[in-house]
């Protein structure tokens, strides 16, 4: 059923780009498709466009649902819609599936024109900067010179930040939620465990598992399980599952006993059933590589000097994967550059995943900031 304030039935669109895209890794994509969705109307001045960038497991399907699959509701539907904080009656909102993805945009599952077979492990490394480049070409195609805002959570926030550095004149506002200017060693370490789970799965076949008619589901499941733990907080897991036992007492088995085990296995299986292992590998690497301060000797303030956008930075108190400290680094680097910046640290028990929830204060912060944006 379509909820009130929903954008309703939506349909993905595909834009084909036949001009090669040179990637940071040195690789080249000779041509590619980007799958995207839009909500609301682009105004006559073309000044009300907002780009929503997705994180690791997201996609172009930000809001609404599909006519043939009404249960498939967009991943940020609680935020985007008529009358919602990102109000589609004011803004023209775009969601894009990033290159290397597995939701229709050209990625490892696509055919490599050079070989006629699936790219698989041969798909070139893509970075946050490459994604922004591809998104900019889509913006050109849609006739959008300047975004009223680029918005994203987690890895999506990194893209929003990168937009303001790669195309400072094309972004009026950056909203970086539960994000970071770069990953810490601990954060990269979690990604590496996830990758090793996939890479060591016998069904991975060096990334060319498609030809063997299998998927490295065990590796992908483990990767998701470890990731999922880090997206939640100790408190939220404790509150949700505690030490609840399925059989009410220990039965001394490696099958599911504690409810948390059941939950993790379910989440892992669900994810492994639809997500692409190569996309997971590529995306975690893109996360690890992102560090705009690298070319400035680690000086984030020097890196952000290029940006001219106004910023809203938001973090969550129990997010230990993208901790408030990381968001504060962004804030103080912007203050150093005398940029307009607002920063909210939301009290939330739900860890990193808080950014996807519809906590009233969190949404009010986004609503009030977005309402100030002139279009």
């Amino acid at each position, binding site marked *: 059923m379509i909820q009130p304030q929903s954008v309703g039935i939506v349909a993905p669109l595909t834009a084909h780009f036949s001009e090669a895209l040179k990637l940071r890794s040195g690789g080249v994509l000779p041509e590619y498709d980007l799958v995207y969705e839009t909500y609301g109307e682009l105004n006559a001045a073309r000044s009300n466009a907002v780009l929503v960038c997705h994180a690791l497991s997201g996609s172009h399907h930000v809001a609404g649902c599909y006519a043939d699959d009404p249960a498939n509701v967009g991943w940020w539907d609680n935020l985007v819609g008529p009358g919602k904080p990102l109000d589609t009656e004011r803004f023209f909102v775009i969601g894009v599936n990033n290159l290397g993805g597995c939701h229709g945009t050209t990625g490892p599952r696509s055919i490599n024109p050079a070989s006629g077979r699936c790219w698989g492990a041969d798909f070139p490394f893509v970075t946050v900067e490459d994604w922004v480049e591809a998104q900019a070409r889509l913006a050109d195609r849609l006739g959008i010179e300047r975004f009223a805002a680029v918005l994203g959570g987690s890895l999506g926030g990194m893209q929003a930040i990168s937009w303001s550095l790669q195309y400072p004149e094309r972004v009026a506002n950056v909203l970086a939620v539960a994000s970071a200017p770069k990953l810490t060693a601990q954060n990269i370490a979690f990604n590496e465990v996830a990758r090793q789970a996939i890479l060591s799965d016998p069904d991975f076949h060096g990334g060319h598992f498609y030809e063997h008619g299998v998927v490295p589901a065990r590796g992908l499941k483990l990767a998701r399980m470890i990731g999922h733990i880090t997206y939640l907080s100790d408190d939220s897991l404790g509150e949700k599952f505690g030490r609840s036992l399925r059989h009410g007492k220990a039965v001394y088995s490696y099958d599911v006993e504690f409810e948390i085990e059941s939950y993790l296995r379910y989440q892992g299986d669900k994810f492994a059933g639809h997500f692409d292992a190569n996309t997971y590998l590529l995306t975690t690497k893109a996360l690890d590589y992102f560090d705009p301060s690298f070319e400035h000797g680690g000086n984030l303030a020097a890196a952000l000097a290029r940006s001219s956008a106004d910023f*809203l930075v938001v973090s969550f108190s129990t997010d230990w994967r993208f901790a408030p400290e990381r968001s*504060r680094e962004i*804030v*103080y680097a912007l*203050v*150093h550059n*005398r940029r*307009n*910046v*607002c*920063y*909210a*640290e939301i*009290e939330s028990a739900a860890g990193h995943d808080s950014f996807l929830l519809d906590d009233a*204060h969190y949404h*009010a*912060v986004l609503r*009030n*900031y977005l*309402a*100030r944006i002139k279009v």
Partner: protein
Amino acid sequence: MAYRYDFDVITQWIQAGERVLDLGCGDGSLLRHLMAQRQIQGYGVENDPDNLLACLEHGINVIQVDLEKGLAGFEDGFFDHVVMSLSLQAIHNTQGILAEMLRVGHEAVVSFPNFGYWRHRQSILNGRMPVSESLPHQWFNTPNVRFFTIADFEALCEFNGIAVRERLAFDDGKRIDEEPNFLASVAVYRLGRQL
């Protein structure tokens, strides 16, 4: 929050185009006043969710910080003025925040309710904690945690090597030059680092 007369004093100490940090900026009304009167570049610090929302609504650069944890992150000497209007009495770490204000700012501007005001003294003599325009809360729900007078504050400045560059005291919006510790309900200070 209604227009407050300490705003006028603070405004006269701020030059056009300054960088100003307002600690406990509330709904951002002082910053808006200074932006309109002095074209400052202002940042506000708040930790109350509702005040934060009000600042966002008004387009104020508001940064959520718990002032008890200091101002780590702001650079030394970055601001021309760091202002704290009627909030010092609500902070536990009095000495820490004063030191931080003078670390990140060239000057600090501080205003606070004077607990030594004669009506407050009279109230205590009559056996009740003072409640007044400058101390609007009851003892059981006040956000204030430090209770000090003009004389107490100046002794602390002396003790901590803080230079009092200027002091203006008021009772109900009227300037008080004689016996301010007795006759003024609110004091506003311009502070610097002792050379």
